[in-house]
């Protein structure tokens, strides 16, 4: 369901980023290139030892979102994803950093140090960069578009099926767990009591949900087998996203960049 700001309702897959009408000059990168860029951005933000690279990754992710016309949705998602863990991590490392030497301030029982503040800023930058990258990728690339692209490149349908089917199964799985939990609550399952009572509530919800999953798998298996799912050989892809010239080189460059960021510090080169 598309909303007025070009995003989609919670739990719904995003609109694909297909670019404005026009020739190859306005064509957006293929889903595979976007995936490689997202994985590279995440890896660089995580591995980097300084603030500069995570902030650069954050800027590139937001720029890509703006180019796709999804800046507002991506920024909102990234903020919602990064805020809880980012604030908790920053607060923990800012206020509690026993290794810190240079004291900046004392707040009650906590001692704020320069070393703690530096580590808190680095962690916050990393989390913000990773959140922006995953939000930008998820907002612009629906799983079915990625799967169509991978299938077009020769990946067998048996390899791509789990990815496409998982995204489709998510709302149904959530509804099943919710329905079972509601039904068990009506029978007296206590989800508000002590930890012991809540722990005892786990089994009556999970086991029926697992068995329901098996039943669903049975019916889906029959449906797929009756339509030659296991048949070997190539498949015809009805909606295959095209690839602009030079994307292959871009993917190779991104992989090389990740390897460089991982290996250069080991060779004694300091990365900011």
């Amino acid at each position, binding site marked *: 369901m598309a909303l007025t700001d070009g995003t*989609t309702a*919670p*739990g719904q897959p*995003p609109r694909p980023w297909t670019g404005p009408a026009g020739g190859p000059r306005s064509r957006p990168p293929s889903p595979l290139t976007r*995936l490689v860029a*997202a994985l590279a951005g*995440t890896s660089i933000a*995580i591995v980097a030892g300084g603030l500069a690279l995570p902030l650069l990754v954050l800027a590139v992710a937001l720029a890509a979102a703006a180019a796709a016309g999804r800046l507002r949705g991506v920024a909102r*998602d990234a903020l*919602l*994803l*990064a805020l809880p*863990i980012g604030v*908790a*991590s*920053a607060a*923990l*490392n800012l206020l*509690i950093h*026993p290794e810190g030497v240079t004291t900046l301030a004392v707040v009650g029982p906590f001692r704020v140090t320069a070393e703690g503040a530096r580590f808190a800023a680095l*962690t916050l930058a990393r*989390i913000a960069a*990773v*959140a922006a990258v*995953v939000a930008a990728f*998820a907002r612009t690339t629906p*799983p079915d578009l990625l799967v169509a692209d991978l299938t077009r490149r020769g990946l067998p349908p*048996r390899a791509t*099926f*789990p*990815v*496409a*089917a*998982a*995204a489709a*199964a*998510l709302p*149904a*799985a*959530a509804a099943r*767990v919710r329905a079972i*939990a509601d039904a068990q609550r009506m029978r007296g399952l206590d*989800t508000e009591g002590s*930890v012991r009572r*809540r*722990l005892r*509530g*786990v089994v009556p919800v*999970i*086991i029926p*949900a*697992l*068995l329901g*999953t*098996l039943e669903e*798998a*049975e019916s*889906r*298996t029959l449906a*797929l087998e009756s339509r030659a799912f296991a048949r070997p050989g190539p498949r015809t892809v009805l909606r295959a996203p095209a690839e602009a010239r030079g994307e292959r080189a871009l993917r190779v460059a991104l992989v090389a960049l990740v390897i460089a960021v991982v290996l250069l510090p080991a060779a004694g080169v300091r990365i900011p």
Partner: protein
Amino acid sequence: MDRSARQGRTRVIAAIAVFLVVVAGVIAATAVVGPPAADSWYNAAAAGAWPVAITLAAIAATLVYALIEKAQTGAVASLARQLTTRTLVLIPLAIAFNVVLGATIGQSLRIPLYLDMVGTVFVAVLAGPFAGAVTGILTLLSWSYLFPPPFQSPTAAAFSATAMVVGLLAGSFSVAGVFRPRPRSSGIGLAVPALLSIGLLGLMALGSPFVTWATSGDSIAPASDDRILLVFGWIGLLLVVAAGVGLLGFLILRRDVSVAYVVLAGIATGIVAAVMSAPIVATVFGGVTGGGTDLVVAALRQGGAGLQEAVLGQSLVSDTVDKAVTFLVVYLALAAMSARMKARFPRGDDLIEDSARLDPAGVSLGAWR
């Protein structure tokens, strides 16, 4: 032992040997092996090498297993057999189940567990280690990159390797027969494994940092005289005693010794998961994962523990309890399934109790399936 079984044993031994050699090699290559610092029981410098070492070793062991099988039989049937259409259909449902449980149940019941690998362990036990590893990796990658809000998690993908190893371990335990029911156990058949498992539980507990902090005052404890660490140490000790008593009660009531094996397998898997996850949480995310367990890390840090130590201490408790509960839940779900349903999956034979394998006429179930 027939030829096929002998070949299978050779592959398993070779895979285990490669795993151990690669782990030792990577740890040695990173040149961080050595005694921990004088004021700590934990070698924080070496911590980051363990996830890399275990991940590379698991991949190398799987490759060696496949290459030997290819050389022995001309095909890699034991891995390909795990990915039947039924398994491929179950994997996405298990991925969705993992994410929903991890994001919904853990929050709605507000318990200090993750419960985000029930589907992975379920697939691994029913289909095999390779299928479990695939489910684990795809779950964590999809959770970060593919699933839209509110199911999306920015931190999940960083733990893909941990999920892969959990899937491999759960599947390997299934192949070893850990999940096969052994009901109506009695006498020595029940008592010896029960005492053995509770003894092992005690040994694992003695090695845990919480108990170390609580019971020792020598140099390996970072702040054993600290009240916060002491309280957490005793909480850890009480948890272990409660787990032992609970396990004993469960064994006496159900008289199924497999419960002990399943819980121990879960604890062992949890220890590996903790060793792999803790350095990532500490180094990448500053010791925070966004769950209720973050408070434990904060308390341990305030008590003077290093970041790596605090996160590992918290992970060793959370992950072992979480994986033990996960394994037990999967075992109970399998117990609720009919033998016919289990037998439809690649490892179904390993999940059927011995007494159900033969019908009264002595014909193997495999003969009519």
